[in-house]
């Protein structure tokens, strides 16, 4: 469990955070630029002493201003992957990787060879940082932090300086890290796609305040998150398991008490899947639909209807899971929708975006 309770004034930013998140896992700090994400990470790292607060990792107090506790950065055993990598230019890749390893007093649980294999760094060892691509630099920075045997890994937008291709190159390494090592990770991002793929717990920051936190699926239904992501990207996040696959790349997922069909070529039965169903891709029907190509017609009841600048957002309980549908005010009037009404939510299998996602055990 990572507990963060802090208040800090930093320039014009008044930071206020109070949350506890389960560990191990990936705790994503998500918010717009300037919302205080980096400040919060620097406080957790100990690089920035907060005006007031408590930082606790499992049974260890890292900061407690009231009790006068402030474990120095160099003894915190908190690995930090900076946005700009910050590799030491006078050392080779190997020298960089071994820098923290040489200095750790802890029992070496993550070995040099293991990190080389996990991050694909073997061929880079004799190179100097200026001879690396952006993606390679971030992988080396990640390896360097891991080898310092951290109890907590902080990653401040490690992919932000990379183009899309490099991002897609590094993301699988981060997923591997989450699934194979049991190190809690605090991951800062303003890209929801990254959060969707990596996070087990989501903390939302807005103008320095933590406005909500919880699982990604929970928060996907909340207005706080919907206000931060681009309106087009509002959608419910469903979590399920692959129950069966067909020869054409369609997969039958067990979600809540029902099942959901998505096109997920290459999915293996039993894999945990996290799926985003965008609200603008969901159609509502007040009668059982017939003769349609759509693969998912989920029977449910209207739970909630909210109107905003972008139209009407309807949340529908479909048996242990909730989907969101974006409709026009005219459609709402035509269907005379109200809370508690029975409806069918139609979702095209090809319109959903899914990622294989294995929660860390325990």
């Amino acid at each position: 469990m990572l507990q963060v309770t802090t208040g800090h004034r930093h320039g014009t930013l008044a930071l206020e955070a109070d949350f506890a998140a389960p560990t191990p896992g990936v705790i994503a700090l998500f918010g717009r630029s300037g919302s205080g994400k980096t400040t919060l990470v620097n406080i957790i790292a100990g690089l920035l002493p907060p005006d007031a607060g408590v930082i606790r990792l499992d049974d260890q107090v890292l900061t407690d201003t009231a009790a006068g506790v402030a474990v120095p950065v160099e003894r915190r055993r908190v690995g930090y992957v900076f946005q700009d990598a910050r590799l030491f230019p006078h050392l080779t890749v190997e020298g960089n990787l071994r820098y923290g390893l040489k200095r750790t007093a802890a029992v070496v649980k993550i070995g040099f060879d293991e990190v080389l294999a996990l991050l694909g760094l073997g061929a880079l060892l004799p190179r100097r940082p200026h001879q690396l691509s952006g993606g390679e630099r971030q992988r080396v920075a990640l390896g360097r932090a891991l080898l310092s045997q951290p109890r907590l890994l902080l990653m401040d937008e490690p992919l932000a300086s990379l183009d899309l291709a490099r991002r897609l190159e590094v993301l699988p390494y981060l997923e591997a890290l989450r699934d194979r090592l049991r190190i809690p990770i605090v991951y800062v991002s303003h890209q929801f796609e990254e959060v969707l793929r990596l996070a087990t717990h989501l903390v939302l920051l807005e103008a320095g305040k933590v406005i909500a936190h919880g699982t990604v699926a929970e928060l996907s239904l909340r207005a706080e998150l919907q206000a931060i992501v681009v309106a087009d990207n509002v959608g419910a996040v469903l979590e399920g398991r692959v129950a069966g696959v067909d020869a054409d790349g369609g997969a039958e997922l067990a979600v809540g008490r029902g099942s959901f069909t998505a096109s997920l070529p290459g999915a293996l039965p039993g894999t945990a899947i996290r799926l985003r169903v965008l609200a603008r891709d969901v159609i509502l029907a007040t009668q059982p639909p017939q003769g349609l190509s759509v693969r998912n017609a989920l029977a449910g009841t209207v739970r909630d209807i909210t109107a905003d600048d972008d139209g009407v957002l309807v949340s529908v309980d479909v048996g242990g899971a909730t989907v969101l549908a974006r409709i026009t005010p005219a459609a709402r009037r035509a269907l005379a929708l109200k809370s508690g009404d029975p409806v069918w939510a139609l979702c095209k299998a090809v319109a959903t975006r899914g990622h294989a996602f294995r929660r860390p055990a325990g």
Partner: protein
Amino acid sequence: MLNPLTPAELEALRLSLSVALRSVLLSLPLAVLVAWVLTRARFPGRTLFDAFVHLPLVLPPVAIGYLLLLLFGAHGFLGAFLREHLGLQLAFTTAGAALATAVMTFPLMVRAIRLSLENVDRGLEQAARTLGARPWDRFRSITLPLMLPGILAGVVTAFAAGLGEFGAVITFAANIPGVTRTLPLALYTAMQSPNGDAIALRLALLSFALGLLGLLAAEVLVRRARRVLGR
């Protein structure tokens, strides 16, 4: 003109090299410390301290030599102390010439080192901190290597300038053949003697060549160091 150097000229060359080398070794650790203090420390009177460090650049060298004589001379407050406790005499010795040279070239060295320290990315030191490096370890393993181009530039420039230090040396250490008569002092002596024109010209050319060599060496070394750092 192209004759090999005479024993007296060789002696002056050897002394100049020895004095410059000793002065650099003497001032380097202190210059790194002062550069660090001027760049990183915040304390009242920092601007005054900064000005004080740079004084030798603007003061007449003779004045520096005179001040050293007052401090380290036989009756000087530090001179008496050194002679009593360490049996060390500085005025009118080669070591004294090195001290005078060190004081004169100190600002040059501090400036070069300070410039390189200002360019060291504090973010890299923070990264080293998160990887478990304590303050001295951080300085030794990250800050110092990253300052290397500036340290090399400072050392070579101070060395080259030290070869030719005149006013402070002649005032504090006098013009004693084989002890403190370095190249510029030998040149001055030759100019003062009736038939010394040819010797003076040879010594002037030698000084010119040494100075040029020193500055070129500084440039080459700094470029190499930068390449290692990938800049």
